[in-house]
């Protein structure tokens, strides 16, 4: 489904702030995989995600989604293949627009926007039912401005938006990091359910080792812009946080630097 070959990206090249964010990264994700990504500060996790989304062009390398080379495709075009939830709950939804309008815009991802009614009546009913599955009471507030919702509610709506038009790849960028623990658990639960129901191929970045172990069928660990640990299936199920820390030290020859990851 996703095939990344020899991806390189250096920020601020030739200056004192030069930072090799991706260093010849290779990654192949099979259809239906749920991959969790973990790594220390500045390991390149978000950079990897931004590269897939097309926030900027990589220095070299190739990104394929379902056999289509998207390396040089503008971000809004490749969005047709991607569902995305940001770390910042404010980023994924338009605050001054209704919940229904936000969902309607997402339902038309990858299609040409025409001069016909933006939210049809039948759609509203459909969205009402979808919102009810979140169990956040949003089904009665379909006409409310998204800006009135809490961060957790907005992330849940963003998740719906990302999966409404079934994406080939769902990208979650630490999407529970800005939420309080209880809300984060709820959003993760919704995530699992949506991924399961729609059988979505998923890439989830997290700073929480327990979450990385508990979710998905494959776990990769990044360090210095490369993948250093890659476990899946039965082996992943048996993992503990101690195992992970040990694996990391062995693979990178370095301490794992991210307080949040260990404490979280």
């Amino acid at each position, binding site marked *: 489904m996703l095939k990344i070959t020899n991806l390189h990206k250096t920020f601020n090249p030739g200056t004192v702030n030069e930072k090799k964010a991706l260093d010849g990264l290779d990654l192949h994700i099979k259809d239906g995989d749920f991959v969790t990504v973990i790594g220390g500060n500045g390991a390149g996790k978000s950079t990897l995600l931004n590269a897939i*989304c097309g926030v900027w062009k990589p220095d070299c390398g190739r990104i394929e989604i379902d056999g289509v080379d998207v390396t040089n495709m503008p*971000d*809004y*075009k490749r*969005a*047709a293949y*991607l569902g*995305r939830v*940001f770390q910042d709950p*404010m*980023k*994924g*939804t*338009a*605050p*001054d*627009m209704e919940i229904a*309008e*936000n969902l*309607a*815009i*997402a339902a*038309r*991802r*990858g299609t040409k*926007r*025409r*001069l*016909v*009614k*933006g*939210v049809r009546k039948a759609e509203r009913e459909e969205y009402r039912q979808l919102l009810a599955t979140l169990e956040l009471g949003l089904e009665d507030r379909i006409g409310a401005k998204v800006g009135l919702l809490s961060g957790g509610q907005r992330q849940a709506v963003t998740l719906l*938006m*990302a999966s409404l038009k079934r994406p080939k790849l769902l990208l979650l960028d630490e999407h529970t990091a800005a939420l*309080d*623990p209880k809300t984060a658990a709820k959003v993760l639960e919704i995530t699992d359910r949506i991924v399961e129901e729609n059988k979505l191929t998923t890439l989830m970045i997290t700073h929480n080792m327990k979450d990385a172990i508990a979710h998905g069928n494959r776990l990769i660990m990044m360090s210095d812009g490369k993948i250093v640990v890659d476990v899946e299936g039965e082996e992943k199920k048996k993992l503990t946080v101690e195992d992970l820390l040990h694996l990391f030290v062995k693979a990178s020859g370095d301490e794992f630097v991210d307080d949040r990851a260990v404490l979280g």
Partner: protein
Amino acid sequence: MYFMNALPGAVAEGLIWGLMAIGVYISYKILDIADLTVDGSICTGACVCAVLLGLGVNVWICILAALISGAIAGTVTGLLHTALGIPSILAGILTQLMLYSVNLLILGGRSLVAVDHRANHVLVHMSDNPSAIVTMGILVTAVIIVLWQFFYTELGLTIKSTGDNPDMSRAQGVNVKFNKVLGLAIANGIVALAGAMLAQYKGSANINDGRGAIVIALAAIFIGLSVSLKIKPNFVCSLIGVIGGGIVYYIVYNFVILLGLKTDYLKMLSAIIVTLFLAVPYLKAEYFTKQKPVPVAQAKRGG
């Protein structure tokens, strides 16, 4: 008594500037771009209309030509911003400067072209304010209905989301750059349309017509929204509010003239009104908000 005599004129002119303010509302409020093109494009609309009327062209074609000329100006600003990466405020200033030369060219090097409302068929003129009010009322209503319909289409919604949250829009496959150009074209088209009506109403197009226009439009927007947002915060109400703001602005304008303020100082007055509307919410938040005790539920949260 004098004031009552001046009232119809104030309403008619207020409607024209309210229409112009709707154009600015689209760029400033919907696209979140402070587009300074409008100072030039309102004048372009006036010049195109006045010159074509002088050539004996049908008034509706003159108005359409003005609207298109404004849309082209908006497109230029949009492309400077999106295709060439120039910050939007600077892109607007550059186009505005270009338009000064373009407008002089349209006027044939003259600084003023008169429109003879007796020789030409014009839709509005200051000699007949009641009919001007009716005509402008119909035109403004038509524009509001068209915009209302448009901004609730699939395309219209993505223009709104482009201004509201560009990150979300890109993630949902919206071509943000195209939408900005389209939005600026629509905004400046409406502004130039108002310019065409202004040239007919005043009976002339002047090269200095648009100076400070954006400030008048912003004043109309702030006055209008301060009321309409409290009544019903939706799109149509906001547009009606903006028109109302334009009318209120011109009534106040006429009132202060009657009080004896020299017309030389009116631009200062416009600027002060806008400054107050921009500054008051900030000052309120910064200096006049009492700290409330932290609710217990929130204090517990964290991590």
